[in-house]
């Protein structure tokens, strides 16, 4: 039986089909989930895709957080199901307090689309295990509210526990604190990042194919879980 990875479509989700495509390219079965669903249709992992759910009105992710599908998602996340938030999905996960911190307007105040490099700071999460420690990957950033902020204590904690998963290399594109591009929860199963790995899965349409590793990682992780050899969910703390 193939691994099923769900992608939630909220009203205003835009990169949902791209995430589904990436899941398929990685070798999993892509499953569309709908914001008004009351369950997760038996998927093994969930992606919250990029876009402008509810127009990004009020604050990005603020309204989507109350979608019906978020209830089963929160429960599943607490039980260790791998959850990935990309861009708007990251914003939703922060608003839902599944991840710490917040994403606010870029310091330069413009929407910015850029190919850029990230360093994989933690390769032991459910979504990064295919990468080498410290691997540098080229992906796409495209967002107007991508500046990661949290109070100093939270930031220190994230650093200490190895929960900064991705960091921007080179010029900080949006003013994110400590160049943070992505973080995870304490268990390492919930990861959020602003850049779009799903737009770096085909040489024809992206700057690289480096992003594919995110999707193959979760497959490897799920295989380990089902064969009972999982160590990865605890990985966050052991950097």
């Amino acid at each position: 039986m193939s691994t099923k990875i769900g992608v939630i479509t909220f009203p205003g989700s835009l990169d949902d089909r791209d995430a589904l495509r990436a899941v398929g390219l990685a070798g999993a079965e892509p499953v569309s989930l709908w914001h008004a669903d009351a369950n997760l249709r038996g998927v093994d992992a969930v992606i919250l895709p990029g876009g402008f759910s509810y127009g990004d009105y009020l604050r990005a992710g603020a309204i989507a957080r109350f979608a019906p599908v978020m209830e089963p998602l929160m429960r599943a996340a607490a039980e260790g199901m791998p959850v990935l938030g990309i861009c708007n999905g990251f914003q939703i996960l922060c608003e839902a307090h599944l991840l710490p911190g917040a994403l606010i307007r870029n310091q330069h105040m413009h929407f910015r689309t850029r190919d850029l490099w990230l360093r994989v700071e933690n390769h032991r999460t459910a979504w990064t295990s295919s990468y080498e420690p410290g691997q540098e990957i080229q992906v796409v950033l495209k967002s107007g509210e991508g500046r990661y902020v949290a109070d100093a204590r939270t930031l220190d904690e994230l650093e200490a526990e190895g929960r900064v998963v991705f960091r921007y290399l080179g010029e900080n594109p949006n003013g994110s604190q400590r160049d943070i591009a992505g973080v995870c929860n304490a268990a390492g199963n919930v990861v959020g990042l602003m850049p779009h790995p799903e737009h770096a899965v085909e040489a024809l349409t992206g700057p690289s194919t480096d992003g594919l590793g995110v999707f193959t990682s979760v497959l490897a992780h799920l295989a380990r879980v089902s064969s009972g050899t999982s160590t990865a969910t605890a990985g966050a703390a052991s950097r």
Partner: protein
Amino acid sequence: MTQQITLDSVEHAAATPEVVQPYAELGLREEEYLNIREILGRRPTQSELAMYSIMWSEHCSYKSSKVHLRQFAQKQPPSDRLLAGIGENAGVVRVSDTLAVTFKIESHNHPSFVEPHQGAATGVGGIVRDILAMGARPIAVMDPLRFGAPDHPDTRRVVTGVVAGISQYGNSLGLPNIGGEVVFDPCYQGNPLVNALCVGVLPVERLQRKAAAGVGNVVVLLGAKTGRDGIGGVSVLASATFDETSQQRRPSVQVGDPFTEKLLIEACLELYEANLVVGIQDLGGAGLTCALSETAAAAGTGMRIYLERVPLREPSMEPHEILASESQERMLLIVEPDKLETVLEVARKWGVLATALGEVTDTGRLVITWHGQTVVDVPPSSLADDGPVYNRPLQRPSDLALLEADRAETLPRPTTPEELRATVLRMAASPNLADKTWVTEQYDHYVMGNTVLAQPEDAGMLRLEDSGLGIALSCDGNGRYTRLDPYNGARLALAEAYRNVAVTGATPVAVTNCLNFGDPEDPAVMWQFAEAVRGLADGCAELGIPVTGGNVSFYNQTGSVAIHPTPIVGVLGVIDDVRTRVPMGFAESTDGHVVFLLGRTQLELSGGEWAWVTHGHLGGKPPAVDLAHERRLATLLSQARTRRLLSAAHDLSEGGLAQALTESTLRRGVGVRVSVPADLDAFTFLFSESTGRVLVSVPEERVAEFTALCDQHEVPHTRIGVVDASSGALTVEGQFTIPLDELRRAYSGTLPALFSGTTT
């Protein structure tokens, strides 16, 4: 709030023929007003007068342009690809046995001066609905823009607002922006041009029509509530000259809600898929008035509308306001009664309002009631099709002879290597040639995951199918060329868009256009218009590709001064395998490839960027255009692409070869070494704007095959140098070397210096 005492019903109008009506204030001429009275056999009601004033405005009726636009159909070359053409919301072109593509450009110029952000945003929203109305999923946008002088104090407001508006609306819709134009010229100071192109794709059998066919079918309004947005906007904003008095009138601008539009798109596509609509029409500038009258007129039916059913944002709105409202994000559907419930369900699923407003009748009349009283009773075709048509007087502008005589070829030119080097840098840093990343990185070009090429490439390219089938699109225009010679200016714009598509390896197949001109009642402007249309129609016939649709924007002027006539031409190309597309830039991996210049170079500087940047000069005759050559060139490029002979191809346009080399080297930071051919001087080689030229790179071992192909297609080719990755520089042998870092500083610093450090 006072109770409204008399509703101006049809009955009331018939009983009060003597009432004086403000037709002139609504932009109608006396004879037009009398014509309306004749059609109705009485005076129009307030609502009817509003409707006629809207539908008979220049914007909706094309009353000044119609007699000229006919040429597009008359001169149209035969095409077995065209599924819908002029007269539909947008032209539709078959690209495979099963797929069709629809595309169109529209303008939103005046609103974008009044409120740049919302004006530009709603411009994108409007053209997207046109594409949606054809049954297509919108898949990309482009944005040809014109602004005033870069250093004028008001330019920053307009540039930052327009770009932010396009960015916000397009990005929130999830439509990749794959190209456009940014041009500065003082002639656009009080009248920027904001044109927006949208392209969509559909299965051939899903093509939708706007006809309200089928007596008894239900008329459904889908989308946002109706408010007092842009009431009179079409007649005031889009058809009147912008001056101080209209500033005081502070017309209520339309505000866009891209989130609602996104839901509207998904809802419509679901309705099409389930075959739930008989007809569909977007609500654009002329709101319900246009949608009701056009759908009814197209089917030759009548319609019965209960206007009080329209969901309102402001309950106090009156019938004529509801009919004229330009509220965004609305579509009109014609639905069979037994499918209504399913339609409403789909709308609910997507969270968009859907309201049955009335039904299709066989009366041949559009009858609209308001709480039981009839406020409109007219033949729909009198609104949609029988508007006035004018054959306006034409006169060659009196200054044109003098302008033509003042040739740029006589201006003093740089000659020493140092002067030439400095000129390359100065040109690269000039606002029209400089890097546009400051603008384009505010746009998402990745979303949807099918963007194969996007700005700064010559054309945008999208994958349509996993088979590799794709399309390429470019839009171009040059107001200065067109000012000097409108006939050839239009052909030059066409040639450039065509060539930009061809360099990617795609085959150009169809044309759309947006004609931005001044006041049509000025015979000199009207002459420019007539010449440009003639040029474009002739040009399309010469190239063998049809005009499928477009848009006319008149009254682009400040006071008595018109903008440069600015036809923007969009060309659509098809490519069988996007994996074989040819990029514009040199690459690390193409080190040592041989660089050729295709086409012939002559001393042609008039209307060009060099004359403007270094001398502030505009005069003479624009470069010669040879469309037969362009056709051969395109065929050559397509065949060379199929045989994988090209590692890069880049069109030469404004700024000539120097600029093309700048762009091809900086694209990936890979240098080049060229030398001046024996029969040319270095200046002409670098800065002439002769058209029909392309810079290509070819692997050394394929050179013989390539030159043979050029000879076969009679395309002149000159070997000018090699890609030189290790040099990290642009070198013209015997003249100068510019390290790429230095070149990039010049090229990329300009726009951020002008517009960064922003507004709220």
